[in-house]
């Protein structure tokens, strides 16, 4: 059973608007969460992370929100750009346990 779930396989957004990608997890032991971006025929690259002691982390156009009570996190991209079109994976881990669990990915398409 998947411990990290991304229920939206795809998302289409107009350039300049906000993209919101969602992720849910089931294991309350997770204390560290990451977002990765993947282009076709390339490996995933790290985008942004958040520790469970925070509820928000921001890096430029990317913000990750964590709602521990709901076991839910989201990635906001503002403003969205065509170059953001990629598959986004949510991941969760225990710090110091060094094992990462990934969701099934959301394919984002940003239309010019």
């Amino acid at each position: 059973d998947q411990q990290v779930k991304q229920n939206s396989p795809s998302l289409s957004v107009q350039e300049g608007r906000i993209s919101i990608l969602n992720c849910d997890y089931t294991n309350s032991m997770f204390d560290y969460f990451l977002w990765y971006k993947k282009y076709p025929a390339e490996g995933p690259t790290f985008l942004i992370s958040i520790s469970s002691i925070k509820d928000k982390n921001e890096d430029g156009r990317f913000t990750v929100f964590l709602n521990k009570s709901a076991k839910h996190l989201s990635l906001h991209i503002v403003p969205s750009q065509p170059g953001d079109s990629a598959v986004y994976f949510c991941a969760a881990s225990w710090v110091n346990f060094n094992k990462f669990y990934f969701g099934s990915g959301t394919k984002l398409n940003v239309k010019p």
Partner: protein
Amino acid sequence: DVKVTQSSRYLVKRTGEKVFLECVQDMDHENMFWYRQDPGLGLRLIYFSYDVKMKEKGDIPEGYSVSREKKERFSLILESASTNQTSMYLCASSSDTEAFFGQGTRLTVV
């Protein structure tokens, strides 16, 4: 710049062949992983290794084995390739807080 290198970008193998996928990292990480990526299923962990000669099964180890003889190198072995092992294979190594991925190997078993 950190680097995880997979030996092949594309491979085509025949059913029943023994296949080796090689991965090397230059970050002195203790932890290394093999994932496969399939549409709609995301990244599924096949095996991981937390030290030289140490390994643990991930979520889908059947049909695979691994070897870690040196810290920087982690090999995935398909003992007898089958068509349902056609996939994108991704190697990663990790610090405590981030996994770094190789560029992936697209394996096709015919």
